[in-house]
């Protein structure tokens, strides 16, 4: 089981989940906030020193006004990596977290050994529309996250406590700050993907209703040492819906290099 750690960077306090030993692996979460620690993370923590920080502004972590967009968030994480003095990091990001990871990597890969992007936001393939998770209602949003609707049923059956609902709303506000306009994309990012000079794995569910898997090529076309792997019968949350397969693909990728 992970421990919850509290870090202080400049004027902000941020929470972070931590478990395992080995080479450092930093997991950057998506727009829903700090993930539930499930089998996916246990598998990774069996081989790596896994850190899952809560992004500033999400859940219980403060939203500093000096983070207005994803490039600001990336600069913040570069500060964090310096402060923790981590080296040889395996950087893994999901959705919004994948976008942040890529913005970090185009700036500086000195501390980064590899990059794994799971259904990342941040780059758009023109002419291929994506879902609008800000206009979807709650049930629609949850259903559109999964291929296998039994996961959605399970999530919808849970009622959030007042505190959980408040934390979720904090995350939704911060996600909007970072991703509302232009929606889930930084047009400049694609222009600099060639700067990513570490081995990169792009993972995508074949039935992702938010960001279609066709977007994978927009990443692999521009990152030299990169490959895309499509996970069958899977929606936008591979680490939840196909946790074992997704974890073993990442472990295999990190073992190969």
């Amino acid at each position, binding site marked *: 089981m992970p421990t919850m750690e509290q870090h202080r960077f400049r004027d902000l306090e941020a929470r972070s989940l931590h478990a395992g030993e080995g080479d450092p692996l930093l997991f950057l979460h998506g727009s829903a906030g700090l993930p539930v620690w499930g089998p996916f993370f246990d598998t990774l923590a069996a081989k790596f020193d896994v850190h899952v920080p809560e992004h500033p502004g999400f859940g219980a972590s403060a939203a500093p006004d000096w983070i207005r967009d994803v490039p600001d968030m990336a600069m913040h994480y570069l500060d964090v990596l310096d402060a923790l003095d981590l080296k040889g990091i395996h950087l893994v990001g999901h959705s919004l977290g994948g976008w942040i990871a890529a913005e970090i990597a185009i700036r500086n890969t000195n501390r980064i050994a590899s990059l794994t992007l799971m259904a990342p936001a941040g780059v758009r393939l023109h002419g291929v529309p994506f879902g609008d998770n800000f*206009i979807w*209602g709650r049930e629609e949003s949850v259903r559109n996250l999964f291929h296998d609707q039994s996961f959605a049923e399970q999530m919808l059956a849970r009622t959030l406590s007042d505190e959980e*609902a408040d934390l979720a*709303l904090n995350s*939704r*506000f911060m996600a*909007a*700050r970072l991703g*509302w306009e232009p929606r889930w994309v930084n047009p400049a990012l694609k222009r600099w993907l060639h700067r990513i000079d570490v081995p990169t794995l792009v993972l995508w569910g074949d039935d992702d209703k938010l960001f279609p898997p066709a977007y994978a090529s927009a990443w692999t076309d521009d990152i030299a040492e990169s490959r895309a792997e499509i996970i069958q019968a899977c929606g936008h949350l591979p680490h939840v819906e196909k946790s074992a397969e997704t974890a073993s693909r990442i472990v295999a990728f990190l073992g190969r290099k």
Partner: protein
Amino acid sequence: MQFVCFTLMPYRPLDMAERHKHRSAWVVLPNELYDPEKGAAEYDSYINHLVAAEGLGFDVVAVNEHHQTAYGLMPAPNIIASALIQRTKRVKIAVLGRALPLVNNPITIAEEFAMLDNLSRGRLIAGFVRGIGTEYHATGLNPVFSHERFHEAHDLIVQAWTRPGPFEFESENYNYRYVNLWPRPYQRPHPPVWIPSQGSAETIDWAADPSRRYPFLVTFSAHDLVARYLNAYRDRAREFGYEPSGDQLGWAVPIYVADTDERAREEAKAPIESLFNEYLNNPWEMLLPPGYTSLGSTKRMMKARAALGTRPKHQSVDALIESGTALIGSPQTVREKIEKMRDLTGFHNLVAMLQFGVMTDALAQRNMEMFASEVMPRLRG
């Protein structure tokens, strides 16, 4: 009391069966449902309605701005204001208002308002709003920065109207090397600014500030809430150390009068129910995008909503009369309700929406004539 005749210009020929296939009459309602022939006739009707208000003794005629919706056909209200200026002589023209955060160059709003003020020789009232939540879906603008953009755009516009140009303007969202308005506004120092609002504490605090003292209009709320918000403005002004005048307090409300309460209720039923249930009703995600209201306000609203249940309730004419959200009845009934609000709050600006929802031209005309002859005179003075 000052009387304002206002219409939203809803698209009445809307196919309601088609409307129900979509989550809202805003943003996602396919525009194939708009028929330009019928729409052009709608503009004629509504402009005639507002022009007639001058002859009936209203002090102000008013229009407003909404985007991508059958709820109102005025994405560019200044165009209607310009037409009204040409067809009226005395009446003031209020644009209630322009949605400041939605434009990337607020100087265009300062310019257009200055033009209208000149064209009308000082008959313009300039309203400033943020737009409702749906506008942030319609325009793609980030609702999280809505308040910030509103305040910066407001400062820019007022400075453009009042500071000798050219001058430089710098802010987070708007930066100009040259601000130098041609034409300047006709009125000195600038056209009156009104703030329509749904009553957020932040807006009340900002509008009542002694440096602004902007007239504040509560729109589309239950009677008790209207009284609470208007009195909150008064209390805030007193905390700022001054006594607000009734001219700073306004109430925007759908009104329908007929000979008897029963007849008014019967004739207003379809129009008022269409306004609230077909045109205005929006899912939570469209009405309150994240950041549109502060985190604290949003949390309070979500808890209130959780208590009410997730399905929006059908709003019946009786419920809307009962809550005082709409004033529907005989001239005496309606007059008494307005007097009651005046006694409770001292408000002075009544923004009367005398055409709403699917109400026909004939009923709208009879309504405004009866309101003007049977209700307005006794409330004056």
